[in-house]
């Protein structure tokens, strides 16, 4: 296979780089090493592989990778690329003037203070308050505590009392606060694009409703996303009672379509499944990314990690088997992971179920690569009856869900690790059928008034429905949404919706637990909630969300003193005793009718999955999420056709080639991304891109995979055709940026059996020079010495810490072009490493914040003392002193310093100013920045402790990354205190420092990644 023009990891052709690379011009004659997949494969097999590797480019030792590895920032990060123009000349002159220090020759501008008129009770200016609420998403919700500075919500933390959070938060929750302040949010109510008042809308809607009243609602249709809110459900039921002929339809592109259908198949009723991983010793995931996606994943991740935490003599670990097509955070934690095409996962499930003796009507699956596991796996599971768990992926077929139910039943797991409850959804309808029903009515011209509450159906409904054109068949269309999106454009009335931080409401968590959501701020743009809009329709136009929600719960409340109960429920963020009770469920006899063997697969398999960052597209305009490097792939600002190295080789394509993908007559162009560990013969495409009306951030980036997603195959299907259509698409994965030399033991790992035999196995491998081997005098720490330990056995690489850090520390978003140039600003990155064959590697994740070195190379080279050693061992970074020489980042072996090459922070947009953390400086251009262990939190806790005349307690300071971590992988504290959690972790024999041989003495250390493979399975 010959590739004439091999693009490199960064997505730029070699020619383009040469063009910018003036330094490299002299060795142009030197033959370049490029990515050659067969050679890489041969190399790996011959030498039994390198210990671990970062990417295919790393393995092939391409020149481009070597260059990235040897530099602090990519070569083109510090190049001026905008060409010569008058504007640029003026800009440069302005910058030079600033550099000359003359901008300091002004007096400080006069500032004003606007005090309160009547200061609210409990509010102390300068001290944040925290309020409990919850963020609903799909069929679940995450309980949160929102930090509010004088009425501005600025940061989201998990609510420790909430069963689906336990104190952690995921990337969507962390980023949702930016969604509140999104300047592209819809700011006015419009009729055909012209601004109207709510009064005008009320007049129009009541006229339409009065007509419907006469027809008993025969022409009234309500279209919503999945509804879990008990209050909203009661309102809808009331509306349907008032208008008996009206219909309610639900559609959400990433709903639990399969899980509900699977429960119907197995039990004959739409039951909800919840899990208890704290009781599970052996776990089999059938394409379930239970650690980082779906309702309850934060809780599951916490429980899962607790069952494999190795400390001292506690060396018991659970064991995880994963079959999945696309590597996920869950796959990276697997003790045994097998890449299988999505359809083969079902075949494997049939085989495993029949081997376990579960009810399968004698059916066995067609053989898959994972079949070699079946013998040992069945023995392992049967040794753990009642303490094992088989979990089916949300996006797998209903049959896989039913099989998981059958296997869990036969292993006696039900009631121990698996629980069934009534559905969390108010109406667990078959959403596809519901949508088809609506389309039928639309075609028949039976819809006079279509009320669309939330959702973006024009964009994300199954493509064969042609929803955009069909929607117009409804006479009067009303759309309530956060943004004027694709759907709003095709509705006459667009109503601005309240963000979840702006309204009273309620929602249910994965187990049914209700949170009464309270607003943190009055609606920024006079939006209304779905409750209020429904109230308008049902002729109670003056009711506020507060009255509606409170009235509902007053009616539900039994017993005296509702007011006290209400206050406590709102305050706690959890309504007591609302978790749905576990239900006995028995398998339907003969559920597994021996259906015909699947047709021979034709072509490649296409797999649709929600994007790990923008989800189903609703977060497309969120800059934090767009720039968030997706777990494992580290892609930013794009989706891609993700495939395995072998499939790419067969199709003659490489990363950042453009291909035309065709499926069932739908065609689109997509960039290729090669992912080691992806199943062969499959192409994963992430939904949520290619938005046409998302806003300034999210419009027209990536490709719209909904354009080929039909209701026939919502998640996967065969029949994809791929044809190369071009090359050199700018696809930005930061996997090779800020690369460390993988030969240098960046990841320490061991099998638990090895570790049990010899606990020193990690220490033997790793060298650290003796203390005192430095010319500089040491530092003394009398009271506190802050340090961090990161447990690589627990870290699954979900990246919640990256977004939490961004929210806490006012970190700027730079955009795709700038990320490509290596100028992204994340203080914390999560590196992925691979070990083993390129087709099915083990995956390791390593969060890398600033190491706060004891012998810090950065401190010694700063000419203006802008980075200094603090008395507690932090490498302080003083932004106001920094002149931007970048010597420090040049000298940093961990590449954790970030430089403001331009004015990346938005200093002008008013709504974004509200989001900023007032305790952290907003950095300007020309300034270096980096992780400081959230020094603002340290100082706050220290001041509180000193005022109370005590020392800071262990656990009192949680860095932003630590607070949000679902698996408690990151622990921060005082290492001077031998009883602190972090000191105990650092005394473990698995503790090691990154690049410790450099004698930097990092304060951030890692606990080695341990795995618990089944000795019976040959790797």
């Amino acid at each position, binding site marked *: 296979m010959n590739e004439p023009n091999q693009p490199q990891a960064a997505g730029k052709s070699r020619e383009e780089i040469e063009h910018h690379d003036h330094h490299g011009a002299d060795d142009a004659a030197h033959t370049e090493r490029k990515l050659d997949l067969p050679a890489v494969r041969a190399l790996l097999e011959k030498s039994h592989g390198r210990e671990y590797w970062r990417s295919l480019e790393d393995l092939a030792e391409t020149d481009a990778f070597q260059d990235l590895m040897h530099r602090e920032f990519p070569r083109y990060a510090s190049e001026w690329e905008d060409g010569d123009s008058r504007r640029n000349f003026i800009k440069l002159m302005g910058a030079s003037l600033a550099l000359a220090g003359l901008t*300091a020759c002004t007096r400080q501008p*006069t500032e004003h203070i606007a005090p309160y008129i009547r200061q609210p009770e409990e509010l102390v200016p*300068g001290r944040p308050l925290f309020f409990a609420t919850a963020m609903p998403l799909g069929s679940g919700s995450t309980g949160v505590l929102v930090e509010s500075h004088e009425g501005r919500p600025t940061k989201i933390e998990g609510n420790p009392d909430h069963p689906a959070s336990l104190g952690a938060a995921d990337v969507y929750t962390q980023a949702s606060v930016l969604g509140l302040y999104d300047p592209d949010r819809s700011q006015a109510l419009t009729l055909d694009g012209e601004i109207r008042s709510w009064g005008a809308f009320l007049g129009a809607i009541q006229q339409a409703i009065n007509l419907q009243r006469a027809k008993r609602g025969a022409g009234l249709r309500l279209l919503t996303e999945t509804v879990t809110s008990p209050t909203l459900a009661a309102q809808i039921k009331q509306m349907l009672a008032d208008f008996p002929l009206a219909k309610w339809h639900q559609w959400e592109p990433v709903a639990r379509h399969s899980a509900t259908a699977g429960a119907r198949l197995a039990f004959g009723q739409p039951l909800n499944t919840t899990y208890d991983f704290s009781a599970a010793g052996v776990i089999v995931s059938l394409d379930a990314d239970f650690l980082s996606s779906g309702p309850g994943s934060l809780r599951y991740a916490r429980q899962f990690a607790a069952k494999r935490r190795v400390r001292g003599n506690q060396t018991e670990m659970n064991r995880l088997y994963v079959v999945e097509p696309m590597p996920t955070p869950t796959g990276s934690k697997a003790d045994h992971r097998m890449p299988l095409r999505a359809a083969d996962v079902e075949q494997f499930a049939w085989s495993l179920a029949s081997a376990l003796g579960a009810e399968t009507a004698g059916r066995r699956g067609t053989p898959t690569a994972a079949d070699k596991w079946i013998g040992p796996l069945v023995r392992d599971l049967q040794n753990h009856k009642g303490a094992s768990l088989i979990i089916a992926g949300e996006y797998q077929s209903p049959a896989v869900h039913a099989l998981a139910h059958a296997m869990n039943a036969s292993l006696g797991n039900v009631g121990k690790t698996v629980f069934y409850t009534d559905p969390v959804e108010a109406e667990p309808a078959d959403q596809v059928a519901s949508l088809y029903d609506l389309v039928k009515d639309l075609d028949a011209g039976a819809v006079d008034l279509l009320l669309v509450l939330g959702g973006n159906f024009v964009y994300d409904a199954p493509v064969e429905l042609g929803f955009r054109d069909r929607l117009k068949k409804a006479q009067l269309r009303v759309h309530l949404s956060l943004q004027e999106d694709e759907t709003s454009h095709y509705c006459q009335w667009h109503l601005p919706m309240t963000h979840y931080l702006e309204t009273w409401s309620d929602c249910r968590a994965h187990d049914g637990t209700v949170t009464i959501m309270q607003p943190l701020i009055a609606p920024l743009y006079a939006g209304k909630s779905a409750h209020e809009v429904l109230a308008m329709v049902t002729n109670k136009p003056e009711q506020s969300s507060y009255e509606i929600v409170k009235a509902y719960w007053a009616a539900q409340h039994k017993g005296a003193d509702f007011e006290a109960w209400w206050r406590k429920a709102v305050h706690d963020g959890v309504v007591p005793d609302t978790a749905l009770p576990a239900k006995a469920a028995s398998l339907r006899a003969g559920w597994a009718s021996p259906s015909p063997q699947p047709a021979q697969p034709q072509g490649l398999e296409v797999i649709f999955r929600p994007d790990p960052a923008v989800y189903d597209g609703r977060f497309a305009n969120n800059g934090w999420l767009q720039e968030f490097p997706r777990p494992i792939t580290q892609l930013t600002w794009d989706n891609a056709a993700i495939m395995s190295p072998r499939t790419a080789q067969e199709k003659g394509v490489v990363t950042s080639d453009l291909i035309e993908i065709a499926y069932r007559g739908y065609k689109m162009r997509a960039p290729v991304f090669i992912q080691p560990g992806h199943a062969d013969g499959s192409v994963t495409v992430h939904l949520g891109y290619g938005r046409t009306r998302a806003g300034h951030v999210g419009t027209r980036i990536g490709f719209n995979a909904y354009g080929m997603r039909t209701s026939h195959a919502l998640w996967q299907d065969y029949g994809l055709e791929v044809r190369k259509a071009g090359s050199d698409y700018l696809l930005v994965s930061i996997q090779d940026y800020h690369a460390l030399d993988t030969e240098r033991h960046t990841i320490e790992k061991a099998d638990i059996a090895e570790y049990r035999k010899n606990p020193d196995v990690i220490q033997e491998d790793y060298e650290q020079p003796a203390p005192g081997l430095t010319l500089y005098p040491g530092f003394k720490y009398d009271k506190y010495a802050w340090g961090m330990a990161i447990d690589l056995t627990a870290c699954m690489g979900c990246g919640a810490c990256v977004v939490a850090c961004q929210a806490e520390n006012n970190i700027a978003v730079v955009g795709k072009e700038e990320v490509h140039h290596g100028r992204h600003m994340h203080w914390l990155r999560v590196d992925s490493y691979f070990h083993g064959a390129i087709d099915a590697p083990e995956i390791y994740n390593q969060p890398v914040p600033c190491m706060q070195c004891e012998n810090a190379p950065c401190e010694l080279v700063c000419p203006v003392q802008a980075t200094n050693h603090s008395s507690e061992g932090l490498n302080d970074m003083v932004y106001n002193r920094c002149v931007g020489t970048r010597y420090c980042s040049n000298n940093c072996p961990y590449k954790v310093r970030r430089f403001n090459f331009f004015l990346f922070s938005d200093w002008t947009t008013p709504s974004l100013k509200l989001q900023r953390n007032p305790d952290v400086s907003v950095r300007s251009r020309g300034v270096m920045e980096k992780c400081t262990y959230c020094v603002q939190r340290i100082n706050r806790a220290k001041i509180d402790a000193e005022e109370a*005349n005590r020392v800071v307690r262990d656990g009192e300071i949680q860095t932003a990354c630590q607070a949000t971590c679902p698996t408690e992988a990151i622990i921060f504290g005082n290492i001077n205190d031998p009883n602190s959690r972090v000191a105990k972790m650092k005394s473990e024999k698995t503790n090691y420092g990154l690049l410790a041989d450099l004698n930097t003495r990092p304060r951030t250390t890692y606990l080695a990644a341990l795995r618990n493979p089944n000795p019976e399975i040959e790797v």
Partner: protein
Amino acid sequence: MAQIFHHSTNTFSRITIYGAIFVLAFLTWCFATLDRSGYETREGQVRDQPVPFSHAHHVADDGIDCRYCHTSVETSNTANIPPTKICMNCHSEIWNRAPMLEPVRASFRDGTSILWTRVHDLPDYVYFNHSIHVNKGVGCETCHGRVDRMPLMYQQNSLQMQWCLNCHRNPEKYVRPRAEVFTMGYQPPEDQETMGRRLVAEYKIQDARALTSCSTCHR
């Protein structure tokens, strides 16, 4: 060809060249002086305010404690500029028709803030915390001066980093007993340093190394 310039111009150019050094040095001195001057730091300058509020009258004549208005000085980083309600506690009863107080009444009536001009304005990259200073025995007066003698508020000290470091390096020279923190016109004992060292130990004030770590004030 005849000379264009007369011979004496050589002297002139020499003076110019050598003089340039002095000119540059002079300009640098001017710049440095200006930068530290009251013009730049606004030290000692009275700022216009919507209401000519007199600390002298309220503190010295009426004997109102600092904390009656600056409510969060002991608990938060900011001392709190009092909400209009606090003014109205008294001024709904006394001087309730004074034209001078009309902006206060207007604020209370309309629900709009009185827009005070900031007198003590630290740069945004400085994170000063009132409560820890007050709790460790730094008097209001130490930074703000004799507020009880200020009919109109002005900034007593330069508030430049150099000035902050005077105390952060040698806290014993400035601390006073906690009971005296809110006292105006407090007379330190003759052996301030002896008492200071005792108080530094008693109040567990951090050592100079901690107090002069960058992240103590900047982040």
